[in-house]
């Protein structure tokens, strides 16, 4: 037997308690990692390199305000603008509200000149461009609903008073978000008769042109009825995501509460485990174990226990996230769900801290207790 062996034996003493404690630590760290990952996915827009060249022009007041469609040709003439497309959030319902995915009305001709990072079949894109009621769908959404090329689907309008019947003419894959559906803006205009645009999507010629384009576009409409705010795709997504600000705070608080509660649970387990060993600890002292060694034994046991729970919880979540399609599970809310090594490390750190803190009080008490008091303790 070795010292680690002895610590291990001590930990295994009460197997049911050990299992329950490790599992509760694991569970709390599972919740922690899931929540932290959700938080990260929500607050970090996923962008590709190409998207760095893209700008979004929206109404200055808010995302809910629309822009006139006549802006398009004026934006297209701004120096530095390579391509421009209308981009309007349709927000329709497919069968029922649980089937969320994003749908955009756009300029079919310009779409894939702007969205360059995705992979498409040229024949499908050609078919999509030709037909007004055609749409292009991301591979994830295709798989999610088991759709086939040529299939007709109906999107019930929620913002717009129109139901759209679309024919799937093509699939795209790659890029950051493989879940979107794109269809002809003309179809939306006809179906509603409104001729309004949510945003304009600009592909700039090069990164150097960006500040100039932003300035010129916003200046161009500064005295019109619908002033614009032009920003990079990243900035735009951050604005969009800042709506979740309160959710972030909420998740942060939940994490704190979970960690705190678990700290109390492990602390009570450890103090129970140490308390019932008071006499044995006194015997160890009589045999020549000093305070530091006793402290080390207790600390190592508690630390190991918490870390075991942490490993199961954090690494387990990571493994789970890699093998479960969170996109389907979250009904399209999370496009990606990556439990990063960073989050795993943070979780393990918390577990380790939990292990240390939870045994501190009883460990110090048993170091301080006199041998005689310990020996007098009844088993």
């Amino acid at each position, binding site marked *: *037997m*070795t*010292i680690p062996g*002895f610590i291990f*034996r*001590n930990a*295994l*003493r009460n197997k049911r308690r050990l299992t329950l404690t490790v599992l509760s630590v694991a569970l709390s760290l599972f919740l922690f990692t899931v929540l932290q990952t959700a938080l990260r996915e929500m607050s970090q827009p996923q962008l590709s390199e190409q998207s760095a060249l893209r700008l979004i022009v929206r109404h200055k007041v808010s995302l809910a305000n629309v822009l006139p469609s006549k802006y398009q040709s004026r934006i297209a003439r701004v120096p530095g603008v390579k391509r421009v497309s209308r981009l309007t959030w349709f927000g329709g319902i497919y069968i029922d509200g649980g089937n969320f995915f994003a749908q955009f009305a756009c300029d079919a001709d310009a779409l894939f000149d702007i969205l360059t990072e995705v992979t498409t079949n040229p024949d499908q894109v050609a078919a999509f461009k030709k037909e007004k009621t055609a749409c292009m769908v991301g591979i994830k959404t295709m798989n999610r609903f088991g759709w086939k090329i040529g299939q007709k689907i109906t999107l019930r309008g929620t913002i717009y008073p129109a139901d759209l019947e679309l024919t799937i003419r093509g699939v795209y894959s790659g890029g950051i978000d493989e879940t979107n559906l794109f269809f002809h803006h003309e179809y939306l205009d006809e179906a509603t008769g409104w001729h309004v645009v949510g945003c304009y999507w600009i592909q700039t010629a090069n990164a150097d042109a960006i500040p100039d384009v932003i300035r010129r576009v916003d200046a161009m409409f500064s005295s019109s009825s619908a002033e614009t705010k032009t920003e990079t795709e990243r900035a735009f997504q951050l604005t969009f995501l800042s709506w979740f600000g309160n959710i972030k705070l909420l998740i942060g608080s939940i994490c704190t509460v979970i960690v705190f509660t678990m700290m109390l649970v492990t602390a009570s387990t450890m103090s129970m485990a140490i308390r019932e060993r008071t*006499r*044995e600890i006194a*015997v*160890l*002292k*009589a*045999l*020549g*174990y*000093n*305070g*530091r*060694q006793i402290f080390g034994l207790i600390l190592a046991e508690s630390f190991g226990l918490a870390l075991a729970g942490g490993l199961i919880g954090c690494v387990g979540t990571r493994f789970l996230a890699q093998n479960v399609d969170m996109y389907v599970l979250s009904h399209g809310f999370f496009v990606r769900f990556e439990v990063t090594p960073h989050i795993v490390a943070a979780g393990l750190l918390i577990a380790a801290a939990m292990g240390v803190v939870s045994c501190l009080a009883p460990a110090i008490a048993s170091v301080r207790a*006199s*041998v*005689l008091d310990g*020996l007098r303790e009844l*088993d």
Partner: protein
Amino acid sequence: MDQPIVQIRELSKVYRHGDIEVVALNSVSLDIGRGEFVALMGPSGSGKSTLLHIIAGIDRPTAGRCVVEGTEVGDLSETELAAWRKQHVGFVFQTFNLIPVLTAFENVELPLLLTGLSARERRDHVEAALELVGVADRMKHLPRQLSGGQEQRVAIARALVTDPTLLVADEPTGNLDAHSAADVLVLLQTLNRAAGKTVIMVTHDPKAAAYARRMVHLEKGELLNEK
């Protein structure tokens, strides 16, 4: 007799609880030589355990001196005391106090984990100690799989394995039936006679004390003249 291994001079231990004073030991002076087998006797509450605890370095006197092999035990810090106990004292308790989750072998190995011995050396020492107390065949057994007498033998092996200066035992036969008690006492006697171990044993049982070479009587914290 050469230089005594334990020198006790005017040793007192007083417990104070508010206004009430309990004098557990009152100015006790005693020498114990190397290779002695001393039985500390006396009625309940006479201070036998207190004296043994001070000699063994798990309690401190209120006044007086207790020098073991040239070291004033009461002057050591807690950490120094632990190291001192590891080297000089082997404990045998009335209730055996084996660690229930460890086998006989592992219990005996416990004090050796603090030394720099290799696993091989530790095994040799443990096996020799278990052999000496006659429970080598029960090495792999857990305490609850042993009889009381066997448990106490394992505990004695654990006390011996570091080859300490003193073997101290507080009522080592108190929880044993007459037969096992006799076995344990014969074992202590053999360790004393054949291996030259210095043994200090607290007992209030004259039959047990008879195995010792020398009897020291305490009464109300005071040492009676030796007979």
